[in-house]
């Protein structure tokens, strides 16, 4: 462990256990004797929206605070975030940043597709979780994979950390045992790389700007035009997407009426269609459809 903190930034979506994964990683290092710091970043978004957590590790107290701006490594629990600029997964990621990505895609293809500048390690941890635990929630195997790949702690320390942190999250009994087993598989599958040696970054000069004096109405935190939220896509929130089988659809309009987002519209002939940009994939429509005319498809993972 070094005096300059190693910095690991985790990315995922609300509900995937990003915070839990960060806790397992930092607890493992803590049990291995390191000084650690972990912090999630809470935003306004909810389940399904991008979530960030930071873990710093060192051999002495860590003065830095807040979200990591230039990570030594990133752990990406949901590869679809790489294609979403607003998720800022690649912020501060350079040639000497290691990217660990949960995806069935192979590393070189991922690297080309998203122009990842540094080394990429890919592992299909969701499938592993689905297979061993029975849920696609990748937090435990992802944390284990990262602990091994970054040489953060031994299996013994990791196992203890899993029991503590998953236990605190209310996971017990058989479910805990399966998670530990899944983590062990991931741990054994990971290549041992250690944190990359990073070149010191030059300090960019500060370019100060005088705060302008705007007319007060323009200087207020008001939104003066309607419906600006439409500019944002929530397509990336979806794990599954609904599709309407118009052969089976009876045009009853129930899906339209019950979509919380108002993302299902009716054409002039009452045929429903789904606004794929603003559908969050909650699947209320599919659940409620009386004729089961709405099928759910796993979002494409190339």
């Amino acid at each position, binding site marked *: 462990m070094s005096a300059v903190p190693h910095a690991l930034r985790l990315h995922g979506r609300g509900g995937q256990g990003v915070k839990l994964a960060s806790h397992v990683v930092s607890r493992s290092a803590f049990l291995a004797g390191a000084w650690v710091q972990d912090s999630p970043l809470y*935003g306004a978004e909810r389940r399904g929206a991008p979530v960030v957590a930071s873990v710093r590790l060192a051999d002495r107290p860590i003065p830095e605070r807040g979200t990591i701006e230039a990570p030594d490594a990133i752990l990406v629990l949901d590869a679809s975030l790489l294609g979403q600029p607003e998720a800022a997964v690649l912020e501060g990621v350079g040639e000497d940043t290691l990217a660990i990505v949960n995806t069935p895609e192979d590393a070189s293809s991922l690297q080309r597709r998203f122009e990842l500048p540094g080394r990429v390690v890919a592992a299909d941890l969701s499938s592993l979780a689905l297979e061993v635990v029975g849920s696609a929630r990748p937090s435990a195997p992802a944390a284990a994979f990262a602990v091994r790949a970054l040489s953060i702690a031994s299996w013994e320390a990791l196992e203890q950390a899993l029991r503590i942190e998953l236990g605190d999250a209310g996971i017990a009994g058989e479910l805990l045992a399966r998670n530990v087993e899944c983590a062990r598989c991931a741990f054994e599958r990971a290549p041992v790389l250690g944190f990359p040696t990073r070149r010191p970054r030059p300090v960019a000069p500060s370019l100060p700007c005088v705060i*302008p004096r*705007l*007319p007060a*109405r323009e*200087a207020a935190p*008001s939104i003066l035009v309607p419906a600006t939220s439409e500019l944002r896509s929530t397509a990336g929130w979806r794990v599954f997407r609904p599709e309407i089988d118009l052969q089976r659809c009876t045009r009853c309009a129930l899906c339209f009426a019950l979509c919380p987002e108002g993302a299902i519209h009716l054409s002039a002939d009452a045929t429903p269609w789904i606004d794929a940009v603003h559908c969050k994939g909650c699947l209320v429509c599919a659940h409620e459809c009386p004729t089961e005319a709405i099928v759910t498809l796993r979002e494409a993972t190339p």
Partner: protein
Amino acid sequence: MTRDLLTGNAAAAWGARLAEVDYVPAYPITPQTEIIETLAQFIGQGALDARLVTLDSEHSMLTAAGAAAAAGARVFTATSSQGLLYALEMLYTVAGWRVPLVLVNVSRGIAAPLTLEPDHDDVLAARDCGFVQIHAATAQEVLDSVLIAHRLSEDPAVLLPVLVNLDGFHLSFTREPVEIPDPNAARAFLPPRALQEASFGVSHGVAQGVAVLGGSAYSFFRYQMQRGAEAALERHEALVGEFEQRFGRRYGLVDARYLDDADYVLVMSNSLSGVGLAEVERLRAAGARVGLLRLRVIRPLPQRELRRLLLGRRAVGVIDQNLSVGKGGILFTEVASALAGPGAPALRSFVSGLGGRRFQSGEFDRMLASLQRAEQEGGSPEPELLWTDAEERRMRELLRVAGHVASQERNDAA
């Protein structure tokens, strides 16, 4: 124009009447209540075309005030003391909305212990919330300041709420002659509120007061409030110039008395500065070159004006009618920071007037002597809490009655 005898509270109500306010959300509290009672009478007589609604708390009152202002109404409201503190969350909120309204605060000490008489712990607790603060010393100034405050608040470069402060009892319930401007002259100075900045319409929806997440964006809007306050300082100078032309009375950011030749300056605020003025005149008659500076606009703090008037003096004493527990006088800290740097005079801090405490005989002589010593010894950050032997003896008797045994023994031993 007519002249009449008005209390400070009645003067505040007359200010709102002449401002032809649209809306008065209200909640009673001593010593402010007379203001809303008077306005209710004006409305009942048909002299003021406004709606007065008694809310369920000052917190609700300020919410209603801010919301009505956001919808385009000219809004006046008033409170005191506990009420101001109860509303404090909304003071920050409505200031952040950037809406114009005028709030009169009638100063009263804060519980515990519960009291009715004035000091400025209430109004200075609202010092940092984004309201412009004008502290008035006379009933005339109260009326005039309410008119000026509405103009300032609605200025498109400002759009910050304005608080006008007056002391409970010494001003609120004290009658003195007041010139009441002619309604047409008042309307010429303060026309009905223009609606171009109003929000919320059928064809112009606005989301106001929304969450701003992220430190940079949040900072931007807070910085903009600072810019708005700075604009208020400049606009105030222009407005009081126009006010003087129309009504013949001039109000500065500060009120400077006998400063031309003053080696020593006492800084005060609000109505007790009148007592200070009488004492300064007495001391000058005895040959002391002492002057008085009354702070009138306290937010934004007129730092340039303070530096212009106070740098180079031999010593400056700040008399605070408030107490930041664990530090001392709040205005002392403000003045000291405004004067930081080369040429700063020796500074002394005095605290008096809490809960309406009166200055005791000889205390101004003592404070002047303290300033003269400061010139030799240098200033001090430690507050001098004004207290006299006679008060201590009376207090011990009260403590004895209340069964404070230790005090009784101390008394007996003495």
